[in-house]
């Protein structure tokens, strides 16, 4: 993986500065879309800890996103809590849930891991869907948010940037290296005293923590928590973002999230058949650009890196 070289750092600073200045340059509508995109950026980067770095296919990550969202909605709407408290609680409850669900899931790999995360995701959804206290199938409507969209945009920008910085530090720490090791082989790490399951569990929990924050922000942005945010639609969409940007790069999923959200808003302006477009995008990506947009760009650059074995074509 190409490290945080001078050039990469410069590009990131420019992007960040541009994001800070944007509210004075573009329409409020675009700021709203950008806020949504940034929230998805956090969710996608968080999911990619398990997917790209841990090498486990999670098909139930919306459980943490949605739980964060619902916790935030309940605290803001029913208890009149402040936004900081609500967001912190979202993260805490999602983390706890990640610990419980992850504790079972890390025992499995491959198809079975995917199936178990899906089962837990559906389980959480099925409970919330019928739970009257949280509005059952309608959800919680009228969640109070910040008055000004620009203020909320900056809050999201700061939170997401800080979170990604933390995730960067995590995946580039010794812990992150070992995590990638457990992705490449489940047999070899134990020989040097590494507990594969514990490594995977910690990654899963960290991922759930940040997914919870993003879910909380998502609900505040939309002013509503609905059961859909717990379903496969959201779990799947975040996988598509990771695929689109590239799972082999830390910021790949972030790029995927921004592109997908803007594309969605742009295309839904012309046609109702966004799912059709998204379906074709997915199929074409898998067939022709499996490393995603950012991943493929990096492949072309001078600091090219080896693809992990599980992403390479097996002929």
């Amino acid at each position, binding site marked *: 993986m190409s490290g945080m070289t001078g050039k990469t750092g410069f590009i990131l600073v420019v992007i960040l500065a541009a994001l800070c200045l944007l509210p004075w340059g573009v329409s409020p509508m675009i700021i709203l879309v950008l806020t949504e995109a940034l929230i998805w950026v956090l969710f996608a980067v968080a999911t990619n800890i398990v997917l790209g770095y841990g090498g486990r296919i999670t098909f139930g990550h919306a459980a943490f996103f949605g739980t964060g969202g619902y916790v935030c909605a309940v605290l803001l709407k029913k208890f009149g809590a402040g936004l900081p408290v609500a967001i912190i609680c979202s993260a805490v409850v999602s983390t706890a849930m990640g610990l419980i669900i992850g504790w079972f899931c890390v025992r499995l790999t491959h198809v079975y891991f995917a199936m178990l995360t899906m*089962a837990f995701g559906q389980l959480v959804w099925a409970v919330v869907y019928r739970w009257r206290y949280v509005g059952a199938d309608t959800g919680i409507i009228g969640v109070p948010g910040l008055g000004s969209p620009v203020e909320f945009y900056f809050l999201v920008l700061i939170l997401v940037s800080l979170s990604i910085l933390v995730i960067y530090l995590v995946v580039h720490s010794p812990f992150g290296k070992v995590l990638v090791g457990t992705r490449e082989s489940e047999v070899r790490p134990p020989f040097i005293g590494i507990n594969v399951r514990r490594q995977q569990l910690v990654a899963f929990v960290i991922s759930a923590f940040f997914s919870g924050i993003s879910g909380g922000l998502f609900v505040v942005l939309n002013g509503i928590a609905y059961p859909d945010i717990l379903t496969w639609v959201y779990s799947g969409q975040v996988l598509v973002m990771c695929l689109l940007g590239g799972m082999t790069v830390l910021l790949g999923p972030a790029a995927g999230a921004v592109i997908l959200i803007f594309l969605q808003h742009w295309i839904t302006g012309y046609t109702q058949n966004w799912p059709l477009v998204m379906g074709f995008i*997915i199929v074409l990506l898998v067939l022709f650009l499996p490393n995603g947009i950012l991943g493929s760009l990096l492949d072309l650059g001078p600091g090219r890196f080896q693809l992990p074995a599980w992403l390479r074509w097996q002929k």
Partner: protein
Amino acid sequence: MVDLITTQIITGIGAAGILLLMAVGLSLVFGVLHILDFVHGSIFLFGGYVGYTFSLLLAPVGGGFWLSLVAGGLVAAALGTLIEVLLLRRVYERQLLFQFLILFGVVYIVADMMKITWGTGYLSIARPEFLSGSVSYAGGGVVVAKYNLFVIVLGAVTIAMLWLIMNRTRFGLHVRALHQQKEMAALLGMNTPLLRTSVFAIGSGMAGLAGVAIGGLGSLSPGMDVEAVILAFSIVTIGGLGSVKGAIVGALIVGLVQCLGLLVLPQLNIAFIYLVMAIVLVIRPWGLFGRATA
């Protein structure tokens, strides 16, 4: 109370009949192709919609239901063939994630195409005369809709035919060889690409049959595709991925849990299914009848 439970159990087995058709196809595809066939639900709904169209076209002639059952199955099998030849063949050698994602993309495409063609309303297929109404047993205590019994029979007959094909024909022998040792099967000169396509087509055809069957039982609407495939996934994981016997038992378990859950704690009857699925996966990841090494 006993009568009520019996009624629920028979209704449960009826529901299981439809789930069974889906799950057996899904399990067959996984067993031979090692693919988590996420489009199975889309093909199921597609078969149902095709059956609906045929039943409308044939309404003036009569006998529409049976012909639409056949047509739904065949057209669904054709769609399955198309997907296998155009897309799946390119990803067999790729990682699980990419196989899953490409099918996920196809789910979106098929769902939107169906929305364009058939709209977003609830469509149901007219049942034939003699399958409407219900029969009662045990002095009127146990009441079962005739159509539910029909669905049970349809499930049983289809599974029996599949069993015969797999165990009594040359084609079935080849499929089993492919299932056990794909390299060896290819070395012995079997046309493995054709075998794979046929298996996918058979699985898809069964999904299509199930779609028409459910169109007569309730109605068809967008969103049922994924709902159904997730339910079918839970069945095959409970029974064991790749095991047809497991799919049968899994379908019975899920059908019964769904209906008995309705009696005990109606609020949580869907949650029960996923709870059972999670428990089975945690304790015995390869499912009740699967093989540990699969």
